[in-house]
């Protein structure tokens, strides 16, 4: 009578074709892709019910988003803030915080950079010094704003989801208050705005394109944050705290500082997006800053599964959707909220698909590893 080998007793079905790490990666790509496909189907049904042609819709997304070099540049232009706001959601999410504060940080950061530019322009400061100061101001203001939500969460026990959303509403109100009031440029008759930046005070385009430098900055920051979250002690501690707060505390990790720092990084990213919106797109701060980039960034981050590198392609996808919005509105006579409906459907489908993790039969090995 021979005993069965230990491994066959423990895992009778196991055929180790791939190590669990790669399987988890495949799982994390297959499930969101499947959710996207399912959303496209649901949205097609929605269009069919309204008597619209789904094939025409998706071909217009293709035309408006990627088909020509003009549309690609339009897509990239819109992806730039989405990368930064997506990162702004993804980084605190790794430590277990759900923050809706990116929109507020973007608005206040943009406003702050437009305001600090005024004395520098009037004082004749050199631009090479002025623009970095504007960017740093935007990051500091955004970081402090969202950092406040992190601080309140950790040291006062205030739920960060609600407090960060309230902070967003307050930020928009502050911007309206200042832009319509003290800092209103007398020249802005149609739409109250701050004093416009001079032509040489604008951030230019990446040479050879009509895409501003915010895109390149976003790519660099995504890479840096990936290194921070995956390859440093900070990121490791943050992920432990996100996985099990008590365990992290028991290990003596500085959980409070990690939480506040993650939120501050998030706010700084969103604030930087605000700086580029002001210095590269609008040339001044006004109500156009609250263009929902902060909220779309939440969906971007969810679809990227909070991975800073994956945020980039997902931001391109939503940039393409946004870029084709106008074309679809004109050609198919559909309201601008069409994209919001599509986003909502993607969001709901995606979260529903979360329950599939560890339950796909052909990826079942990953279940034995890190998932419960």
């Amino acid at each position, binding site marked *: 009578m021979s005993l069965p080998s230990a491994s066959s007793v423990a895992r009778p079905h196991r055929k180790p074709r791939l190590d669990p790490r790669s399987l988890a990666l495949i799982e994390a790509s297959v499930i969101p892709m499947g959710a996207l496909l399912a959303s496209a189907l649901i949205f097609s049904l929605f269009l069919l019910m309204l008597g619209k042609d789904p094939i025409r819709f998706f071909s217009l997304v293709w035309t408006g988003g990627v088909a020509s070099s003009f549309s690609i540049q339009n897509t990239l232009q819109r992806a730039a803030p989405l990368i930064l706001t997506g990162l702004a959601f993804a980084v605190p999410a790794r430590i277990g915080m*759900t923050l*809706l504060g990116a929109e507020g940080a973007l608005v206040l950061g943009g406003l702050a950079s437009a305001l600090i530019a005024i004395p520098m322009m009037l004082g004749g400061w050199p631009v090479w010094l002025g623009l970095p100061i504007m960017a740093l101001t935007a990051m500091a203001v955004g970081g402090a704003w969202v950092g406040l939500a992190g601080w*309140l969460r950790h040291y*006062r*026990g*205030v*739920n960060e*989801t*609600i*407090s960060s*959303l*309230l*902070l967003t*509403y*307050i930020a928009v*109100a*502050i911007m*309206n*208050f200042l832009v*319509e*009031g003290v800092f209103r440029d007398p020249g802005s008759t149609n739409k109250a705005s701050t004093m416009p930046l001079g032509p040489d005070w604008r951030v230019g385009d990446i040479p050879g394109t009509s895409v501003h430098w915010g895109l390149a900055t976003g790519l660099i920051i995504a890479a840096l944050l990936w290194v921070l979250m995956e390859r440093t002690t900070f990121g490791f501690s943050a992920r432990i705290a996100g996985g099990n707060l008590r365990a992290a505390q028991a290990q003596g990790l500085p959980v409070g500082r990690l939480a506040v720092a993650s939120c501050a990084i998030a706010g700084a990213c969103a604030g930087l997006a605000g700086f580029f919106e002001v210095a590269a797109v609008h040339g001044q701060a006004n109500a156009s800053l609250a263009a929902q980039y902060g*909220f779309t960034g*939440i*969906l971007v981050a*969810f679809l990227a599964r909070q991975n800073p590198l994956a945020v980039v392609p997902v931001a391109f996808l939503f940039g393409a959707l946004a870029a084709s919005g106008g074309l679809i509105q004109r050609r198919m006579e*559909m*309201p*601008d*909220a*069409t994209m*919001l*409906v*599509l*986003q*909502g*459907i993607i*969001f*709901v489908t*995606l*979260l*529903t698909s*979360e*329950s599939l*993790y*560890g339950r796909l039969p052909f990826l079942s090995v990953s279940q034995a590893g890190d998932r419960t």
Partner: protein
Amino acid sequence: MSDAVFMVMMAMFGGAIRVSTPFLLVALGETLTEKTGRINLGLEGNLVLGAMVAYATSYSTGSPWLGVLAAAGTGTVLSAGHGWICKLPKVNDIAVGIAFMTLGTGLAFFFGKPFIQPTAPRLDAIELGNWSSNPQVQQALKINPLFFVGLALAVVLWWMLKNTRWGLIIRMTGDNAAAARAMGISVDRVRLVATAAGGSLAGIAGAFLSLYYPGSWNESLSSGQGLMAVALVIFARWSPIRCVWAALLFGASGALGPALQSIGISKGYYFFNAAPYILTLIIMVLSARSQKAAHEVPGELSIVK
């Protein structure tokens, strides 16, 4: 008392009741949902979609009360979707709430475009101020029946949670799901029903916005009332009766700006607009670590863990 102060006081009183009604309805719905241990952040979506559906129904049928009913139905369906998804494993109820906020708002804006221009029949108020000859008093005592519906619901909900079998089932599900399961209660079904019922109240709150005050449909109709109501429930420590007082407090803070405007103080309009948000934040900070709240919070609630 000087005239101006009297005017502001009366405008504040009337305004507080008007502004508080949607807060009250959403908060009662959220209280019911949270009592079962689940949180629905998507009520903002219900509110906006409910407002649009109510307005469209009232416009096409001529009956505003039919609009209220349609809004309640819409809210029920939307929240039933939330409840159904949340019972799947590994799904985070806060995230699903954000998704439903996006979906509800998107659908409302999508289908609501044709209804921004036309005027629909609105809900009538009950005029309780006819005994007075003072027009400000009359104005302040014009109260919408939905406010009284909210008050009655608060009492009924309080009584039900405290004294009935259903109330016990709801509280048990919210405090200890494992114990409830051991008693043979279907935790998922209780939560699904409570979420759907809460969603219908948020839909009605939306109907109040579009059919009474401010009384028209547009895309900036809701300014986060659905979300502030979630904070309000925490502040009210999950008690329907305290929800009434909290909603009135929020209503008063929201009525401050318009009341000051009525006597010609329009400076800082945007600042007064922000007053309810600032108040909510301060209240959350003050109530977050209170011993009483820790004692009364439903044990299964993810938001306080």
